[in-house]
């Protein structure tokens, strides 16, 4: 049995001001700004949950939620 982490990007679009700090400093290029200039997780599967986006967002607009509940047999 191994634990598989499910990483969720909880984004408060109303609070995001599109400064691009999270996009620029994400080591895995997970994030981009959408057509309204709000952040979006476009490659969530690449996220390593390093939390850098959450730590540096000046608007408290992005949170990383790690769920460890999904367990499955390793093939």
């Amino acid at each position: 049995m191994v634990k598989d982490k499910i990483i969720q990007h909880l984004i408060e679009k109303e609070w995001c001001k599109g400064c691009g700090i999270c996009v620029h400093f994400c080591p895995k290029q997970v994030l981009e700004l959408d057509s309204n200039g709000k952040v979006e997780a476009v490659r969530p599967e690449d996220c390593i949950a390093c939390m850098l986006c959450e730590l540096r967002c000046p608007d408290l607009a992005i949170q990383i939620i790690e769920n460890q509940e999904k367990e499955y047999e390793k093939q």
Partner: protein
Amino acid sequence: MKNKKFDFKDYIRQRFFPHIWCPGCGHGIVLSSLLRAVHELGLNKNEIVITSGIGCSSRISGYVDFHSLHTIHGRALSFATGVKLSKPDLKAIVPMGDGDALAIGGNHFIHAARRNIDITAIVMNNRIYGMTGGQFSPLSGCGKQATTAPYSTIDREFDVVDLAKSAGATFVARSTVFHANECKDIIKKGINHKGFSVVEILTQCPTYYGRKNKEGDAVQMMENYKTNTVKIGSKKLEKNPGLIQRGIFVEKNDVPEYCEAYDRIIETAMKGQA
């Protein structure tokens, strides 16, 4: 709330969000680091009092769900001194802008440090007056552009760390908003320290300081904090002594704390009366 996973929303007054700070303003990162520090220390929200003065940075007191006082320009430390003397069990935290702390409130700053009262002063240093339109501050330094210095500034800047040290602060540290985790750890240590703690945090004002001095957008300004700063005593300083040092510069535990010293005086006086 320590055992629960950190969630900003447990510590803020959500009704005031989105906050008023400009896109990319570093002050939000200071807020976030402060909330994380409080969470990791396992402090109860009712144990904390945030006192602030005037300026963009001072708006922080409205956003946190702690006891809070939004007071007058430069005098946040004086109000905090009053609160702390009457309720010494509260953790007193005073976030201030560089102008609020060291120009308008410069006198209060040095005397709070001299007394060693148990307050944590967070100096959010963006080297300019943002709220009032980009005037230069005592932290701007020479050769900088500001709305009040169209031909560049001629005033030298303070070094917050040296000033705090010589005024007698017993905990003095510096970090930047690029180093958000370090920033949180230093705030934690500052809050835990018994005595006057000064935590200087370099934070970008992209709207005025960045634009006036062609330092680029918020992202670029944060990149600069990465390249222009080093840990205390880093080898890189040999080649480049101009780098700004980050870390804990002073941590002294042998100086009496002001509220405790005051309590002893009350005790002595009461005995004299009997």
